[in-house]
């Protein structure tokens, strides 16, 4: 019996007039894949950090710049206070996050998210100046559910991790992780929908707010 797979591939090969695994084209395909050729890229005049922050704010993200690790805690405190949120967080793991010295009145857990968590803090793998996106990679330090379940999403980003274009993220993943993690999430602002009368409303299913703490 011909399987659907064989039938589909045979039909494509017949249309393209090629034999299975003809060497010339297979080589071409391998080459194309290994080249990682970049297409046209966007250009801008301002510096990459300004561009990144401008784009992030344009999609309703909020921002707090801090100059040292010691200020991160104060930034978190300010944010929670400002939005009248309980001092409870679920935290991802990272060298910076693990070093935070949480005051006694805070309840902080490092785990995956549930449907009841109000606030989460993660650290982004990269920020993309082109789009204002935060890039999160799934892994033992950074479970994906943290990015989507809480109402309030606080993300820490080190200034040196801001890259210019989306393609720079691919290069960094290839260098540092070797292969794609299970999930790579480009997050650009809070969750939104325009499905009711084309009116934009934040907080559809994912976080209602996105707050960036930029560590200089």
């Amino acid at each position, binding site marked *: 019996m011909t399987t659907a*797979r064989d039938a*589909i591939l045979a039909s494509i090969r017949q249309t393209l007039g090629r034999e299975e695994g003809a060497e010339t084209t297979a080589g071409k395909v391998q080459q194309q894949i290994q080249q990682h050729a970049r297409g046209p890229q966007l250009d801008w005049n301002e510096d990459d950090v300004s561009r990144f922050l401008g784009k992030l704010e344009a999609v309703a993200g909020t921002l707090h710049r801090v100059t040292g690790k010691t200020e991160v805690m104060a930034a978190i405190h300010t944010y929670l206070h400002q939005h009248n949120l309980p001092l409870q967080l679920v935290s991802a793991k990272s060298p910076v996050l693990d070093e935070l010295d949480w005051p006694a009145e805070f309840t902080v857990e490092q785990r995956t998210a549930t449907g009841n968590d109000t606030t989460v803090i993660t650290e982004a793998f990269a920020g993309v100046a082109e789009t204002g996106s935060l890039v999160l990679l799934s892994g033992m330090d950074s479970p994906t559910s943290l990015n989507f379940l809480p109402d309030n999403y606080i993300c820490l980003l080190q200034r040196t991790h801001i890259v210019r274009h989306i393609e720079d993220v691919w290069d960094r993943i290839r260098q540092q992780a070797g292969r794609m993690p299970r999930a790579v999430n480009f997050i650009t602002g809070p969750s939104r929908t325009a499905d009711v009368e084309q009116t934009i409303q934040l907080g559809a299913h994912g976080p209602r707010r996105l707050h960036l703490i930029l560590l200089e």
Partner: protein
Amino acid sequence: MKSSSRAFSANAEKAMLDTQLQRALNKAGSGFIDKRRAALDALPEFEALRDTAKAIKEHTLSHLDEYLVHFEQQVMANGGQVHWARTPAEAANLVVELCRAVGAQHVTKGKTMVGEEIGVNEALQQAGMTPIETDLGEYIIQLADEPPSHIIAPAIHKTREQITALFKQHHERYGLTKPLETIPEIVNEARQVLRQEFLQADVGITGANLLIAETGSTVLVTNEGNGDLTASLPRVHIVIASIEKVVPTLEDATVILRLLARSATGQEITSYTSFFSGPKRDTDLDGPEAFHVVLVDNGRTEMLGNDYHPMLRCIHCGACLNHCPVYSAIGGHAYGWVYPGPMGSVLTPLMIGLQQAPDLPQASSLCGRCAEVCPMSIPLPDLLRQHRFRLHAQHSGSLLTRLTLGAWAWLARRPAIYHWTMNTISGVLHRLSRKRGRLHRLPFASPWTRSRDFPAPQGETFMSAWAKKSRQQGGDK
């Protein structure tokens, strides 16, 4: 999905008279058009990106078998599985079997147009595993038991009042009885209801905007975050994707992503753009235990070798719908099947048969706006014209239409008789209109004059005015 494309004319007339629909379409107005314009005005690289995107797709299509095999190998290397389906029925069965095999009680679903194409909801429903749509627009039309009317804004035809009424009717069983008025209230209530569904789902089904051969990744573009919750929380993630979605590398995908959101909603990038590469790894704390990709052909291998080949470049952005004067007047349902607007009028006859949708290729003024805005440079009017040629060759259409077209063709090949006839007709119509410039009634044109005036010619054709002017100027010299 069952089609009512054969009844296009009647559907269109009904749509024109549907005041609720017209109100919703009016409200949508030029929103998409203006936002796209603004996004492209800020993108001097647009033409270069468009050319590159087309070249990437054409390259991939000319090696489609190899890229699909490479994609399959990479998915398997990531610990996932690839399933192939020639027909909608084969694809829907695969999904049903995958759900059944894990004893799925609860199934959530992100928006997938290929899912609509293969009728996956109906198939799951028949198997007793009704999936819950989680994209807000899709959820609304699922409650209304209607198909999507736009490929990126499925509930664009619904007014706020209609949505409120649907929620009132269907949310009572959750104990939610508070009357809703504002948009935030509507969105919040949907969030509350669907949150439970996300958390208890056994299987999550999503589509894919792109497939990446290099890494075996599927790409999902959303704004709500529903796609990611659907893909990440359940035990099993099933991706339904058509075979032409594959591109070679992450860099190639990046080129297309730069065009997709801008062309669709005018965003530079959507809130969430996610790349999924297989199931949960040993080091992962969450994610699905199984990852399946169902690759659907449904006539696409055939398109690869015929005149409709350029249609395989389509990235489903919806720009052609948003810019189509016909779509804007009648909305998506009148088209009668999954894909509306210009791209739908090309695809539907190819997928369900030209004789099942003979009016769709005719439902266009061939104004060319769709081709102008298409980020993949698909010559949509040319493809519609191809359908018309085929219809004519198949002796389709009414005898009157065929005779009229035949007479016109005869006339158009004989310039002298053509000009004389046009002059005469235009003179007669001019006199009939008594210089008012319009006609209320006209023999042989009652379908037109029933609903609007016929603009009367000014009495002289361009050619005769030109000839007169030339004669005068010649005399002046």
